[in-house]
């Protein structure tokens, strides 16, 4: 069994028999939707996909995050929540290779040669990883899309970057992914500029997932969308994450988004992790005062 299950059992110990909602049993989480994921996870091997130790980063003398450590297993989505300025995005940038951490290290289980320290990779190797194994969903779709070329080309570009040179097949893949993210395929040759915000975000997701990434970094994927569009997008993401057995790191300030998408949760404040655990557990039984504040600030309808 994985560390995931072990930590669940550990935390479960003191609360056993306390009428804890959500139904934890030692050794696994049975009431939720993740059971099948866990099973496939076990089949997929016990090696963590990404391992972070004592990660730290500072902008000059201003420390943005410090002493961050976690382990992410294949098929798992880790949510990172916290208020603005808590270091969430800095953490994600470090993970995705856009910033090089000042302290600590990040081990990534690269194909085919196993765990490597991201800091030791050359820029060429890092960019190869981004092209072939990773996907990044930006908060603003404009950062992740080429606004000057058609939707189909946006999706196709990632395939062409991997060496696909068959126009018909690239187009088929683009059509398939547009359908997958619920965009009419007759919009394929339109510019993303003519799309609504929600469609742009879905297009960005299609562009990210078309290469079948092993690891996806999501930075506020639902930021700036109205609630009904947000709900559809979350449904979609949830389905894709389950179908593709995606692993990911999801940065968000909306607890509801984290509740729906993330299996585990890390709460950050002032650049530190103040609490971490299973999503439902952290949200339903917050221990740290800040987490309690965060949960109680959630709007109820």
């Amino acid at each position: 069994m994985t560390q995931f299950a072990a930590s669940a059992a550990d935390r479960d110990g003191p609360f056993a028999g306390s009428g804890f909602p959500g139904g934890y049993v030692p050794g696994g989480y049975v009431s939720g939707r993740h059971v099948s994921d866990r099973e496939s996870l076990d089949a997929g091997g016990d090696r963590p996909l990404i391992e972070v130790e004592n990660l730290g980063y500072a902008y000059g003398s201003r420390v943005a995050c410090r002493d961050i450590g976690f382990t992410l297993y294949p098929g798992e989505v880790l949510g990172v929540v916290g208020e603005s300025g808590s270091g969430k995005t800095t953490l994600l940038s470090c993970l995705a290779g856009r910033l090089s951490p000042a302290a600590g290290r990040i081990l990534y289980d690269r194909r085919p040669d196993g765990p490597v320290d991201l800091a030791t990779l050359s820029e060429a190797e890092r960019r190869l990883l981004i092209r072939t194994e990773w996907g990044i969903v930006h908060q603003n779709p404009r950062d992740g899309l080429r606004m000057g070329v058609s939707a189909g080309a946006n999706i196709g570009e990632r395939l062409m970057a991997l060496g696909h040179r068959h126009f018909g097949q690239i187009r088929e893949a683009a059509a398939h992914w547009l359908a997958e993210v619920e965009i009419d395929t007759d919009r394929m040759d339109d510019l993303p500029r003519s799309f609504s915000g929600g469609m742009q975000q879905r297009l960005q997701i299609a562009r990210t997932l078309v290469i079948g990434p092993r690891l996806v970094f999501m930075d506020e994927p639902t930021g700036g969308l109205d609630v009904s569009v947000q709900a559809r997008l979350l449904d979609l993401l949830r389905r894709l994450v389950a179908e593709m057995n995606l692993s990911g790191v999801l940065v968000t300030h909306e607890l509801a988004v984290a509740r729906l998408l993330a299996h585990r949760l890390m709460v950050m404040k002032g650049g530190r992790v103040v609490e971490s655990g299973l999503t439902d557990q952290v949200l339903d039984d917050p221990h740290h005062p800040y987490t309690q504040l965060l949960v109680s600030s959630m709007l109820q309808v």
Partner: protein
Amino acid sequence: MTEAGGYNFAYLDEQTKRMIRRAILKAVAVPGYQVPFAGREMPLPYGWGTGGIQVTAAVISGQDVLKVIDQGADDTTNAVSIRRFFARTAGVATTTRTAEATLIQTRHRIPEHPLGEGQILVYQVPIPEPLRWMEPRETETRKMHALSEYGAMHVKLYEDIVHFGRIATSYDYPVRVNGHYIMSPSPIPKFDNPKMDRMPALQLFGAGREKRIYAVPPYTRVESLDFEDHPFEVQRWDEACALCGATDSFLDEVVTDDRGGRMFVCSDTDHCQDRRAGAPAGKEEAAQ
């Protein structure tokens, strides 16, 4: 070093020529790689061939025979003035005949007559960066070249097929040199692209405004980009040249009157004259 008409040989001073030659050597050593150089102000405006003229000035010698063409023609303003420039500042012999020239400076065409070993072809380049259309940042395009990240290049061709049903790019058609760097062949028609492949002559490219020099050494592989199901094709004409009857050369459409009259003629004037001097009768002569 000879002085001609009060100028240093070939206009540029010797230090500048050395600097440009060093850039050219580097460019030849790394085919298709854009070498930055300290481009000088030349006595003609940017866009008129300041890059080509500097490269020519750096490689020309007193024994060279120079030919200059603009869109294939020897007698257009740009070609005539650059030819006279070097005749005056370097005292070199000039010609309009492709076969006799040792050094050819060109804008927008490769001569129809096959070039041989010992000849140098100098291209005038307005925009040396083939990725510019997709990626405006110079720092980023350099990285993309270094890492062979060329997915974006095919996006342009993809968009062509989407909008026009075929690859509609007809000039400045991107090529891959020696299996690595993607290069802009300067705005030559894609009709000329196959001539670059394994050409026995040395090809040098000079971009004056962007201050870049790049090169394709003799017998180097030059492939035009395409898709498996949309292979690279060159232009074809239904007409033959109205003057010389050539069916295998690049034709210009010339409007002859204001009632819709038009004719197609070879864009390479030397080629056309050669054929008319010794060769089969063209349409006009046949009609007379």
